[in-house]
């Protein structure tokens, strides 16, 4: 049959109009929170860069769940660490978000606002008391009622330092800095003695650093940022002094966590935050550094260390809500978190788990010493990064901090500008 020009014109019109149909279509906010019913059906579970090292654990976990709940089938998929947020956003926008998703609090916030995260306070309120109160609260969003993910594993870590570099600078390697003042003094001495060749720190201050230093991050209503107060300005002024003296690595302005880790491994930087996991890396990749590694507590002015929280979210639009909620809880319950914690240096978020002898009894090894110290500090740790602090806001803060360190803006002006930009982005988020 001949193709008429009308058909071609129609095809062109569809190409133009189809994208328009996306405008104002609105999300389906009618997703029910009812998770009662028989636990059965096929669900998909997505993790964040865990297959390479923990495949047997997750295979076993899935198998046990399917055995416990006949009629269920869990398809486990794992995404690489790089670009994980982009992968989730593509899935969320395309309506292909898995039923159960491994998330961090900052990923949950936009998903909850878009109505894609199931409110567990409504769907599964009975489970809340099984977790540490702080961990359960970490997936609550300011301005919204509800909790939007099960807390999974927690992590925190000490500050590692290079004893050799400390000794060369005339510092006592058995007395690492415990306060910010001591840290800044030691850092300046290290830079001076090494003629600017050895920096003590390799990262510019992040929102978490401002929190640990004692600056308020958001106002009490959670409607605006507040890290430009006197404490915040004081911290940035100190960092400026370090940067000028090369006590803060000159490449800190463009550094990534990977690049700073490498600098510590090669002895270009004297101190670096890490976790028990890093000890294995030092042992394997830098044996000479490992022999001279010093371990000290995170420095904080608030008395509360920072913790990282991982969560497991249930897609509010899953067709198998009972099975998805049951599986998310199964992955994060005390028994399975404890099993997972024994395979890798992470900490369970379930109430009472940190009192297990595994986290309290020394066996003389460095790994255990770090683990016990971290578990102890986690009992009153805080996730300083606000859940509403998006990637775009992190960029704004980082750019403003860089301008202050380069002397293009005063610390006060830089932080005022950062707060203004973050507030604007917060309002745009809705």
């Amino acid at each position, binding site marked *: 049959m001949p*193709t008429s020009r009308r058909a071609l014109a129609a095809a062109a019109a569809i190409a133009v109009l189809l994208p328009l149909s996306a*405008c104002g279509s609105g999300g389906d906010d009618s997703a029910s929170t009812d998770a009662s019913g028989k636990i059965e059906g096929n669900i998909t579970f997505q993790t964040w860069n865990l297959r390479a090292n923990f495949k047997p654990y997750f295979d076993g976990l899935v198998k046990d769940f399917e055995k416990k709940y006949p009629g269920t089938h869990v398809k486990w998929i794992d995404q690489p660490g790089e670009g994980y947020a982009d992968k989730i956003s593509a899935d969320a926008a395309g309506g292909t978000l898995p039923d159960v998703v491994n998330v961090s609090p900052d*990923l949950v916030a936009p998903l909850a606002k878009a109505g894609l995260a199931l409110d567990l306070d409504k769907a599964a309120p009975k489970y809340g008391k099984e977790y540490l109160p702080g961990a359960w609260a970490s997936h609550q969003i300011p301005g919204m009622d509800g909790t939007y993910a099960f807390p999974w594993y927690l992590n925190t870590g000490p500050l590692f330092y290079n004893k050799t570099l400390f000794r060369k600078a005339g510092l006592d390697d058995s007395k690492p800095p415990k306060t910010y003042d001591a840290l800044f003094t030691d850092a300046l001495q290290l830079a001076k003695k090494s003629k600017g060749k050895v920096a003590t720190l390799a990262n510019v201050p992040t929102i978490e650093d401002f929190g640990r230093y004692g600056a308020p991050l958001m106002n009490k209503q959670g409607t605006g940022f507040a890290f430009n107060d006197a404490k915040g300005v004081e911290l940035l002024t100190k960092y400026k002094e370090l940067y000028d003296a090369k006590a803060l690595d000159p490449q800190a302005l463009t550094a990534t966590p990977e690049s700073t880790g490498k600098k510590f491994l090669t002895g270009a930087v004297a101190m670096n935050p890490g976790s028990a996991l890093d000890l294995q890396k030092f042992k394997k990749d830098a044996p000479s550094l490992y022999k001279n590694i010093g371990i000290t507590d995170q420095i904080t002015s608030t008395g509360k260390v920072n913790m990282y929280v991982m969560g497991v979210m249930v897609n509010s639009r899953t067709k198998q809500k009972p099975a998805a909620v049951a599986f998310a809880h199964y992955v994060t319950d005390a028994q399975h978190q404890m099993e997972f914690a024994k395979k890798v240096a992470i900490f369970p978020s379930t109430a009472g788990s940190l009192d297990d002898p595994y986290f309290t009894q020394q066996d003389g090894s460095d790994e255990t010493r770090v683990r016990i110290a971290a578990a102890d500090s986690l009992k009153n740790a805080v996730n300083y990064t606000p859940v509403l602090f998006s990637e*775009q806001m992190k960029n704004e803060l980082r750019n403003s901090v*860089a301008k202050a360190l380069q002397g293009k803006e005063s610390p006060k002006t830089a932080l005022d500008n950062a707060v203004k930009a973050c507030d604007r982005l917060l309002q745009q*988020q809705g």
Partner: protein
Amino acid sequence: MTSPLPSVKTPATSPATPSAKPPGARPVSRVRRQLPTSPWLFAAPGLLVVGIFILYPFVSTLVNAFTDRRTLIPGTFVGLDNFRELLHDDMFWTGLRNSVLYMVGVVPALVLLPLLLALLVQKNIPGITFFRSAFYTPVVASIVVVGLIWVWLLDERGLVNAVLEAVGIGRVGFLSDQWLLLLSAMAVTVWKGLGYYMIIYLAALANVPRELHEAAAVDGAGAVRRFFTVTVPAVRSTMVLVAALSSVAAFKVFSEVYLMAGPNGGPAGEDTTLVMLVQRTGTGLTGRVGYASAISVVVFVITVALMLLVLRADRKEDA
């Protein structure tokens, strides 16, 4: 004047065939209105791919540029608001400045250096294939690998700085100074693109008649003179093509700067290019798709303008 073509006899239409038209019918116009199906069927797979992966995203971007769409929140029509915001966005102007600077820095080098390189490897002497391959190797290397290698080389404690320190110059902040970072990224783009454009020039040089060079040599022209009076005019249209291709590629630079300056675009984002800004603004769960689309539209318009400018300059030269 007689037509050189032989006359073609068309068969007369039989009045008994069904195609016989009643008086007053306009068969010619009907045929014109209907397109034959077969060519479209052949082209369909290609058209489908173009439609899905080029036309639809393009139109979608155009539409989104006039909305406040976010990654997870469908937008509403906001007219020219995004474009108005661009005018007051410092980062947009930083991105535009860097993209233009990148083009200005990279294009002359990519027009001239590959030509010189092509002249060098054009001669058929023993072992020349090795050099041709060597110069082409960076083209086929992954940009990520290339970027990482250059980051290692230019690092504060990298090989280049070690050499500079050894000869008494001292360390240079290739990866910490905003301008040096941009220059370093340009150097990588030029280094990686040399081989590709060299091949294009080699093809063009093969078409330059040897007699022209011989005649010029007989007239007493030296190598430099022959280059400017014979080679350059002969490959001028290729130079225009290289200029057009490299300027569009340079204006849309992303990977080199992203890898060397980091995802944030260097210190305080001062090395951000427009395409990096699109990526940073429009991706992620809180991405501002509408605003990023508006930046994309600006990039598109500038790119088309660039192409038209180069083509117009070429046409003027021809005239």
